C-alpha cells in the first residue's frame, strides 16, 4: 500500500472496496449479462430488469476501480488531513457529518426534475441511446466532475465554483462564470416552470393539490417559527400528511361540477400564477414559504424515488418502446435534431450536469468528516442520480410507444382531435386508437392526455403503471396525480429557491455599480431585483407557452446546452486545479469529458442557431415566420413577436457558446503558461493540518 495514500485501508469501516474478488467478478458478469441481453434482443421485448442490471453492474465496477484510481492516484485523498468541517466547526454550516447521512444530504440536493424529465424526452430516440449515455456519461463524465469539484472545494475551505474560477484561473474568468450561472438559472427556471404549466393545465385535480401546498407550507412555517420554534421535523411530517390528504381530496374536487371550474386553469393563467409565486417567495421571509417547502419536497423526493425503485423491482415491467426509433434521423416530433448531438444535451442531469458543480462547491464540502468520504459522496452520489435517470427512462419505456408519442408530441404535430392524433402517430409507424387514448385519460382522472408536452405527464403515467402494478391496482388515478404532485412540488421549489438565488446574484453584480443595490436587506433593491429575475425567466416561460412548436422544442435544448456548458466551465476549473497541483499527467480524467462536452454543445448550439430546418434552427424559423407575415398568413404583431423570440433564443445560445469558449481559452492559456513553467504552479489549496481524530 502506498504510504502517501492511506485510503482504502478501511480499518474498521466496512466499505464497498472491502468486498472479496469473487463478488466483484460476479458483479462484472451480471453487468455484462445485462448489456448482453439488451444488445442481443433488439427486435424483441426486453425486460426493464436487464437495463437496471446493466446499469447497476457498471456503476459498481466503476465505483470500485475508477473512483478508487481517482481518489488515490489522481486526487490523493488523505484521511490524515483535517477537513473544513473539522477546522472550522461551528455547529451550523461547518458540521462534520457521517458519510451515509451526508450522502443522503448531497443526493437530495443534486436530484431534481432534470434527471427525471430529460431521459423521458430523449426516449423519442428509443431507450438504447439514453441508457448508454446515462451510464457511460456518468461513469466517465458526470461523477468525475462532481468528485473533482467537491475535492477542490474541500481543499479550499468550501469555496464556491465562481470563487475557485476566480482564484485558480483569473478574475475575469470568475466574473464570466458568475454571469453564466445567472443566465443559465433563468433558462433553467423557465423550462422547469413550463414543464409544470404543461402538467397542470386544464387539470383541476393537479391545480388543487399544488395550491394546497401553499397553505400547508405557511402552516409549517408558523409551526417552526412561532408555535414550536425550531421543531422542523414534526412540522414536516404534519406537512407531508396534509399533502397526501390534499392529494386524495383533489379527486373529489375534480369530480365535483361545482368546484372543478374554479381549479381548471389555462396554461397562461398557470404561467402567471407561477411567476407571481416566484416573486412573492423571493421577497417574503424564507421561513414562511421557501424553507418549509424545501423540507417538504426533500422528503417527498427521497420517498418517491425509493418507492419507484421498489416498484420497478417488484413489477419488472417489459420495455415496450423500441431500442431505437426512426427519429434518430432528426425528424422527431418532441424535439428536432439528430441523435448526435441532441441525445447528449437532452439528457444532462443523470449523465453530466454542470449545475451539480454549484452544489458540490456549496454546502456539502463544509460537512465532510474525512477526506476519503468525498469519493462516496462526490462520485457515488452522482451514480445514484444516474440511477434515478435510468428509472425515469424505464418509466417512459414501459409505455406503449403510441401512447408515449401521443402525450409528448406537440399539438402542432398531432392536430386538434383524438382522431387526428391517432392518425399522425400511425404515420410514424406506431399504433394507438382514439378509444385507447380516451380510456387512458379517464383512468388517470384527466380530460385529455394528448399533447401534454414536457415529459412530466408521460413520466407520471409510466410511474402510475408501475406503482399500481406493484402496490395495488385500481388506484391508477391517485398514483398519477401523486407523481404529478411530486414533480410539480420540487420543480416549484427549484423555482422559488432559484429566483431567490438569482436575486442575490443580481444584487451582488449591481452592488459593483452602486453600493446600496448590493445590500440584500434593502427592500426596494430586493423587490426590484426579484422582479427583474422573475421577468427574465418569465419572458422565456410565456414564450414557451405561446410557442407554436410547443415550447419544449426550443427551451429544453437551450437549457441542455447551457447546463452542459456550465459543466465545461466546471471541468476547466477541475483541470486547472489538477495542473496547478502538479497532477498534469492525470489531467486527462477531466479533459476527456471536457472534450466530449465541448464537441456536443458546440455542435448543438451551432445547429440550433443556423440549421436550415425551421424546426431546428432558430434563425431559419424566424425567416419562415417573416415569409408568413409577408404573405399575410400570420398576423404581423403576433409574427413579429415570434421572430423576436427566435432571434433572442439564437442570441442566448450564441452568448452561452461565446462565454464558454472564453472560459476554455483563458483556462488553456493558463495551463500552457504553467506547463511551460512561465508561471509558477501555485494553487490556493489550504495548507495541510493534521486531523484530530485519525481512524
Amino acid at each position, binding site marked *: 500500500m502506498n504510504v502517501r495514500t492511506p485510503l482504502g485501508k478501511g480499518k474498521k469501516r466496512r466499505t464497498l472496496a472491502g468486498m472479496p474478488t469473487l463478488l466483484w467478478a460476479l458483479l462484472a458478469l451480471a453487468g455484462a449479462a445485462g448489456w448482453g441481453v439488451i444488445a442481443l434482443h433488439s427486435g424483441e421485448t426486453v425486460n426493464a430488469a436487464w437495463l437496471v442490471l446493466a446499469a447497476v453492474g457498471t456503476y459498481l465496477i466503476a465505483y470500485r476501480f475508477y473512483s478508487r484510481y481517482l481518489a488515490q492516484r489522481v486526487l490523493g485523498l488523505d484521511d490524515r488531513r483535517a477537513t473544513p468541517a473539522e477546522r472550522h466547526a461551528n455547529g451550523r454550516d461547518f458540521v462534520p457529518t457521517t458519510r451515509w447521512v451526508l450522502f443522503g444530504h448531497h443526493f437530495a440536493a443534486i436530484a431534481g426534475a432534470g434527471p427525471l424529465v430529460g431521459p423521458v424526452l430523449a426516449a423519442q430516440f428509443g431507450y438504447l441511446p439514453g441508457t448508454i449515455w446515462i451510464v457511460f456519461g456518468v461513469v466517465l463524465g458526470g461523477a468525475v466532475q462532481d468528485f473533482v469539484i467537491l475535492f477542490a472545494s474541500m481543499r479550499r475551505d468550501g469555496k464556491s465554483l465562481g470563487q475557485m474560477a476566480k482564484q485558480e484561473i483569473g478574475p475575469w474568468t470568475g466574473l464570466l462564470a458568475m454571469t453564466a450561472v445567472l443566465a443559465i438559472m433563468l433558462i433553467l427556471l423557465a423550462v422547469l416552470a413550463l414543464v409544470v404549466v404543461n402538467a397542470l393545465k386544464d387539470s383541476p385535480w393537479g391545480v388543487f393539490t399544488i395550491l394546497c401546498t401553499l397553505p400547508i407550507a405557511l402552516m409549517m412555517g408558523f409551526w417552526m417559527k412561532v408555535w414550536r420554534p425550531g421543531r422542523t421535523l414534526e412540522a414536516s411530517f404534519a406537512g407531508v400528511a396534509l399533502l397526501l390528504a390534499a392529494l386524495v381530496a383533489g379527486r373529489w374536487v375534480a369530480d365535483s361540477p361545482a368546484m372543478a371550474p374554479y381549479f381548471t386553469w389555462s396554461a397562461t393563467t398557470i404561467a402567471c400564477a407561477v411567476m407571481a409565486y416566484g416573486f412573492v417567495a423571493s421577497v417574503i421571509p424564507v421561513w414562511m414559504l421557501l424553507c418549509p417547502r424545501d423540507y417538504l419536497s426533500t422528503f417527498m423526493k427521497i420517498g418517491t424515488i425509493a418507492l419507484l425503485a421498489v416498484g420497478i423491482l417488484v413489477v419488472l415491467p417489459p420495455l415496450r418502446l423500441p431500442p431505437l426509433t426512426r427519429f434518430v434521423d432528426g425528424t422527431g416530433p418532441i424535439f428536432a435534431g439528430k441523435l448526435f448531438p441532441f441525445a447528449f444535451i437532452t439528457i444532462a442531469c443523470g449523465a453530466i450536469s454542470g449545475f451539480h458543480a454549484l452544489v458540490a462547491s456549496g*454546502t456539502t464540502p463544509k460537512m465532510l468528516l474525512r477526506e476519503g468520504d468525498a469519493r462516496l459522496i462526490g462520485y457515488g452520489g452522482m451514480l445514484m442520480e444516474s440511477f434515478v435517470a435510468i428509472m425515469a427512462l424505464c418509466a417512459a419505456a414501459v409505455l406503449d410507444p403510441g401512447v408515449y408519442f401521443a402525450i409528448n408530441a406537440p399539438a402542432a404535430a398531432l392536430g386538434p382531435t383524438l382522431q387526428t392524433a391517432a392518425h399522425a402517430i400511425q404515420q410514424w409507424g406506431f399504433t394507438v386508437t382514439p378509444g385507447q387514448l380516451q380510456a387512458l385519460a379517464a383512468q388517470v382522472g384527466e380530460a385529455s392526455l394528448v399533447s401534454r408536452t414536457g415529459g412530466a405527464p408521460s413520466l407520471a403515467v409510466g410511474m402510475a403503471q408501475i406503482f399500481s402494478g406493484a402496490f395495488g391496482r385500481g388506484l391508477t388515478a391517485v398514483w398519477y396525480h401523486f407523481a404529478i404532485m411530486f414533480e410539480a412540488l420540487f420543480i416549484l421549489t427549484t423555482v422559488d429557491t432559484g429566483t431567490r438565488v438569482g436575486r442575490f446574484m443580481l444584487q451582488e453584480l449591481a452592488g459593483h455599480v452602486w453600493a446600496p443595490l448590493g445590500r440584500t436587506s434593502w427592500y426596494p433593491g430586493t423587490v426590484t431585483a426579484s422582479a427583474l429575475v422573475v421577468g427574465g425567466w418569465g419572458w422565456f416561460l410565456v414564450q414557451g407557452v405561446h410557442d407554436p412548436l410547443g415550447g419544449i422544442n426550443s427551451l429544453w435544448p437551450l437549457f441542455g446546452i447551457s447546463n452542459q456548458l456550465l459543466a465545461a466551465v466546471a471541468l476547466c476549473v477541475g483541470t486547472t486545479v489538477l495542473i496547478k497541483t502538479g497532477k498534469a499527467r492525470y489531467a486527462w480524467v477531466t479533459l476527456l469529458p471536457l472534450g466530449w462536452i465541448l464537441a456536443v454543445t458546440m455542435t448543438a448550439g451551432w445547429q440550433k442557431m443556423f440549421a436550415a430546418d425551421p424546426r431546428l434552427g432558430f434563425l431559419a424559423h424566424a425567416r419562415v415566420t417573416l415569409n408568413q407575415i409577408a404573405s399575410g398568413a400570420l398576423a404581423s404583431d403576433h409574427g413579429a413577436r415570434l421572430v423576436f423570440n427566435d432571434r433572442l433564443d439564437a442570441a442566448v445560445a450564441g452568448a452561452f457558446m461565446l462565454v464558454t469558449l472564453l472560459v476554455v481559452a483563458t483556462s488553456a492559456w493558463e495551463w500552457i503558461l504553467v506547463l511551460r513553467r512561465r508561471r509558477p504552479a501555485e494553487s490556493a489549496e489550504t495548507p495541510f493540518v493534521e486531523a484530530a481524530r485519525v481512524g
Partner: protein
Amino acid sequence: MSVEFRRLIGALRRVAGMPDYDAYLAHLRACHPERPVPTRREFFDQYVTARYGDGPTRCC
C-alpha cells in the same frame, strides 16, 4: 428517547438541511463556553437566514 431514535432524527435533519439546535449547543459548550447561548428560536432564525442566503442549495 433511545439513542438510536435520536440518531435517526439527527440523520433526517441533516439530510434535509435542517437546523440541529442540540448539536449546536453541544458545539458551543465544548468550544466556546464564553459565548451567549441563543434560544431555540434565535438559532432557527440565524440558521435559516444563513442557509438560504447565498448560492444555490438545490440542483435542477
